[in-house]
């Protein structure tokens, strides 16, 4: 039970924080079409967070989703550090989108056959949405990787900067063996392998190179975060925490 809860929190927190970052592009995209695309994906991500928190509430009698999302402390969040980093420019956001969404898509694909039925059912639905997120990321990465000298340099530099954080997505939990044994989830190691197999040819097609040295940035899954998360959480809770918990808004 703790194993599943831990898995659900990791996933829900990733989606919540990443959805928040994506939503910051609303009204700010480099072209209107991208503005609309990021808003659309942000809604999906935040919706996925809500769906995962709802399973926690329903199956494990945790607090309601609004409380889980808006009232937990920074060190209680289990998202990977990758998703909490500020958006920077479009290059940084796009490469993160590419790295994160491939992992996310494969994760939900793996979970669609999970022995934990509520999650398997949800995953089948979510992976259908993520298919388009991945398609979007691939299209843009490949175009910008191959377009101008500047766009290529920007893509490569963002990839270099984000790579170790992306490896942090796969930070193993204390429950890996149990999740695998109970056929709930095949584990972070398998996910990472599948992810590498999937993204490598696309990165090559985008004329980019995977950084040669790599040291995964771990910690996020255990509640250790960069200094960029707390300001996000403060902002997110600004209105809802101005009145007593449980107040209707």
């Amino acid at each position, binding site marked *: 039970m703790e194993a599943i809860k831990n898995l659900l929190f990791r996933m829900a927190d990733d989606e919540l924080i990443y959805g928040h970052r994506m939503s910051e592009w609303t009204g700010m995209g480099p072209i209107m079409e991208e*503005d609309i695309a990021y808003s659309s994906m942000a809604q999906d991500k935040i919706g996925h967070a809500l769906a995962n928190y709802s399973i926690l509430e329903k199956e494990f009698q945790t607090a309601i989703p609004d409380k889980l999302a808006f009232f937990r402390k920074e060190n209680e969040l289990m998202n990977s550090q990758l998703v909490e980093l500020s958006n920077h420019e479009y290059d940084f956001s796009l490469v993160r989108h590419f790295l994160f969404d491939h992992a996310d898509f494969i994760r939900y694909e793996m979970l669609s056959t999970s022995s934990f039925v509520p999650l398997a059912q949800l995953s089948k639905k979510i992976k259908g949405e993520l298919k388009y997120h991945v398609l979007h990321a691939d299209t843009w990465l490949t175009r910008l990787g191959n377009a101008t000298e500047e766009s290529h340099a920007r893509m490569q530099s963002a990839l270099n900067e984000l790579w170790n954080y992306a490896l942090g997505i796969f930070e193993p939990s204390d429950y890996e063996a149990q999740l695998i044994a109970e056929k709930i989830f095949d584990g972070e190691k398998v996910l990472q392998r599948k992810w590498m197999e999937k993204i490598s040819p696309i990165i090559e097609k985008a004329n980019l190179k995977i950084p040669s040295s790599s040291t995964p940035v771990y910690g996020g899954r255990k509640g250790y975060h960069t200094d960029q998360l707390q300001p996000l959480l403060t902002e997110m809770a600004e209105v809802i925490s101005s009145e007593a918990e449980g107040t209707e808004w």
Partner: protein
Amino acid sequence: MYGGGYIQEEKQEATSPIDDSQKLAEFEARIDRGEKIEPHDWMPADYRKQLIRMIEQHAHSEVIGALPEGTWITRAPGFRRKLALIAKVQDEIGHAHLLYSAAETLGKSREQMINDLLTGKSKYSNVFNYPAKTWADVTVIGFLIDAGAIVNQVANSKGSYGPYCRALERICYEESFHLKQGHDAFITLATGTKAQHDMLQDALNRWWKPIMHFHGPPDKISEHTAKLMRWKVKMATNDDMRNQFLDMYVPKILEIGITIPDPNLKKNEATGQWEFSDPDWDEFKRVINGDGPCNAERLAVRQYVEEHGKWVRTAMMNPNQKVVIPFA
């Protein structure tokens, strides 16, 4: 949203080209019969010019209008409000997209239009030069500004230019959902805690003047545009739209215990017209000419977006592009 309730009209030039009188008569006869004018049809130069101006200003209003509400997405209280607000602001950008496309059918490119917005040559709805200070402001905008825009857009969707009418029909359909979410959030604050109620009252007090400005100056001081009405470019007068808005929404505000900060606001049952204090048309003029609380900030944000997105647009226009199709 938002579609500028009030669209600035271009001053008539003394030297405007003289249109072929027979073609003009045919054109006007088509409009009288209720036919739609399509992009490849003959149209008077003035008709084209006024429509470009109107649709362009409407599109800019959607883009700029996304900013005051957009900044509240990250602070929206709870999943429900957050998801609704992202969807709503996304719709507004989508409307801008539709409208720029409709204006492009008349011969002005999106890039030219955006340049004119950034240089201040082209205007947008005045109401977005006011700040959204609290969450309650978002509910006032979502409810009442969207409501004002719907009055205007429903009228204009019955106009004569086909692409604009079709865009507006779709926009109005989406706006009606915006209005519902705005109304729902507005009622929640009005009937919530004392602090929530006070926050809403404060927001409405600040927004009332811009709301009264929304449909433009009174007919008696605004330039009359009989020709634009005859050509079905403009479908209702400013006063008519404002009156219709007040008719529909004043009762909805009052019924939930919020007061309207104008002691003189009342309906004259004999004439059917609302009477109200002068909402300071001088301020309206000052703000529309650049001297409002947020004019500089709004354009600065768009300029930032424009500059920082330039490398992406340049890359997309690369003629040596190797990959052009998505990996579907």
